[in-house]
């Protein structure tokens, strides 16, 4: 491993170590919120692989989040699956729907891709409502306690939930880092920067983009399944446009095309909303003002700016 590689892996492992220790020095309230943030960050990491590294600006990731959530939640609800199999089903569900979405939507590019992904997500949301007798429709359903256990650990309690969220986050971060530093990751970036030139060099942009979107779907599926199992609720609201916009905002705030940006963005946005609601009922005003300030002074996001100005080795 090169010096830069060592530095990069050390930084990422240090973050995981700090997050692990957080359960001991954070209050239960903040530790639970950190578990939520880690799950949301997994969603954002997946979005970052598609958007930040491959240039696929999707407005349909809510569909992939919901695919994972329902693929995990429905077997738990209908057949009493436990957390382990439900989690695997959720990840697979997200990846499968992403692959199907990619096969159809990647025939388009740019604004058309945004619109097509948005329409598929909306169709997915309406499908959940249409099959309300099974999916619970708008109401959704609470996941039974028996389906929220893994290897004897009750994932509805603080410590196991935190560790489960951290594990999913750590695996996601590690895979993301390894991926973007691999030859395949370089290809993703090459396609983002100049698709035609990549094609001329012998790469198949469609295959690479389909693979990137499918991997992104696996992340979204993992996040959806984790949310269902760790926080006990499955609902169609997670399939709405709001949940396609949120990972984009997390990634843009943290820094698109940086491995740690999605986590930082999710953390900052969550903390910002929490802090703002304690000060004023106009909390969305504060969040909006922060986003406007960000694009004025750091259009590449927090870590994108840090990388550009100071730490050029940041992945």
């Amino acid at each position, binding site marked *: 491993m090169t010096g830069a590689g060592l530095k990069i892996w050390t930084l990422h492992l240090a973050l995981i170590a700090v997050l692990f220790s957080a359960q001991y020095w954070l209050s239960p309230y903040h530790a639970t919120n950190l578990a939520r943030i880690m799950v949301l960050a997994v969603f954002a990491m997946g979005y970052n692989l598609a958007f930040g590294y491959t240039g696929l600006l999707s407005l349909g990731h809510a569909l992939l989040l919901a695919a994972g959530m329902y693929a995990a939640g429905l077997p738990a609800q209908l057949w009493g699956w436990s957390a382990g199999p439900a989690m695997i089903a959720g990840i697979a569900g997200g990846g499968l729907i992403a692959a199907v979405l990619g096969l159809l939507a990647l025939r388009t590019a740019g604004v058309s891709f945004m619109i097509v992904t948005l329409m598929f997500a909306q169709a997915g949301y309406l499908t959940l409502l249409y099959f309300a007798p099974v999916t619970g429709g708008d109401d959704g*359903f609470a996941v039974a306690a028996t389906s929220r256990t893994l290897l004897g650990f009750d994932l509805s309690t603080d410590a196991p939930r935190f560790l489960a969220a951290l594990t999913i986050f750590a695996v996601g971060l590690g895979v993301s880092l390894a991926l973007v530093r691999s030859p395949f990751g370089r290809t993703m970036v090459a396609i*983002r920067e100049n698709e035609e030139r990549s094609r001329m060099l012998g790469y198949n942009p469609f295959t690479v983009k389909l693979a990137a979107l499918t991997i992104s779907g696996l992340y979204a599926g993992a996040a959806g399944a984790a949310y269902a199992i760790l926080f006990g609720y499955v*609902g169609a609201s997670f399939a709405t446009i709001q949940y396609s916009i949120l990972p984009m905002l997390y990634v843009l705030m943290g820094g698109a095309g940086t491995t740690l940006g999605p986590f930082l963005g999710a953390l900052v946005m969550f903390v910002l909303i929490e802090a703002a609601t304690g000060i004023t009922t106009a909390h969305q*005003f504060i969040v909006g003002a922060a986003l406007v300030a960000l694009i004025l002074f750091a259009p590449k996001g927090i870590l994108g700016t840090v990388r550009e100005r100071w730490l050029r080795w940041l992945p």
Partner: protein
Amino acid sequence: MTKGLLHPTRRGLLMAGGAGLLTAALPGYVGAQAAPIKIGFQLHRTGIGAAYGRWYERTAQAALKLINDGGGIAGRPVEILFEDDATDPKRGSEVVDKLTQSDGCDVVMGTLFSHVVIGSAPRAGELKVPYLVCSEGYHVASGMLNRWTLQPGITDVRSQIQAMAPWISANLGKKVTMVFPDFAFGHDHRDFFTAKMAEMGGEVIAQIAIPPTEFGFIDSLEAVDTATPGLEFLEGTHFWEGHNRVKPADAGEHEAAYRAAVGVDDNGASVSDAADVSTYAHMFSTWETLFAIKAGMEAAGYQGPGDRQKFVEAMEAMTDLPYGIERPQGAKMFNGKTHQVFGTQNISQVQGGKLVRVHQTSMADGAYEDAVDYTTMSF
């Protein structure tokens, strides 16, 4: 080409997102008071429930003032901490967390929209905090939730339908076209009413769903003056009302005091703005839930969060809830097994542009068999 797509879009979308959030915001400040008993209120201040949230907050504030003026709960002053849940289940769950763990509330209450209730109840159960909802949904009495979730302030939709369908069948006709909100509570109305009409020998011949996001529809459910020019076609139409918006001639003795407290005139509009029609049919639920909390805490000898289980058990022991200023909508019966309260319903008719009550159901009309016994579940 790809780079060109990435940069302008990122900037444009951030701008749009920021501007959207800026314009969506409403000004105001959340105050903080030190008080021995803290009640967390999960408020639909923004999102599709905002039209209700505004009046729910006013009604809860009015009930709070009355309780504190009367010596609080067991002699201790009471404080309500309102927290916006954006009418969103994910945020709702976080709000329950915040009110309980960060703000130190003794109980959480006030939620109307059923998906927020279902999304939040698991977290309330995990935190072992009493969660008193005002949502009308059948989800509490159906057994879907947990022992910490109760609905002591408003009758559920299943009971409402059960009580009113016979009168509709007997007086208005046996063939019905349903126009309902295409949302969970609307689906409850659709399903229970269709089944009940079939039972009465009637038939729902068409079901027309209206998207809840269709501007004006939610508001038109109740927060619209029926005498508004252009609504003359409503003359003669019958409405369900949980609590009669226009003060009935034979209203109970506490009706005037309740209206004065919540700032509503005899037509159901704000006393400061006759065009600001209240969500009168539902908002009593927050008032009655607050008084139910008071009664439950006093019966349990509630001292602090360590007595939360005792509080739930005291609530479960409640049965008859007589008419009074604590329950201005009417007397009620609480079923401790299903955690659901049952009261009377009203059917009104638009006469001369005003809603006039033409029928009131009895509590027995809305009774149905228990689907759950929460008291057998562990805490």
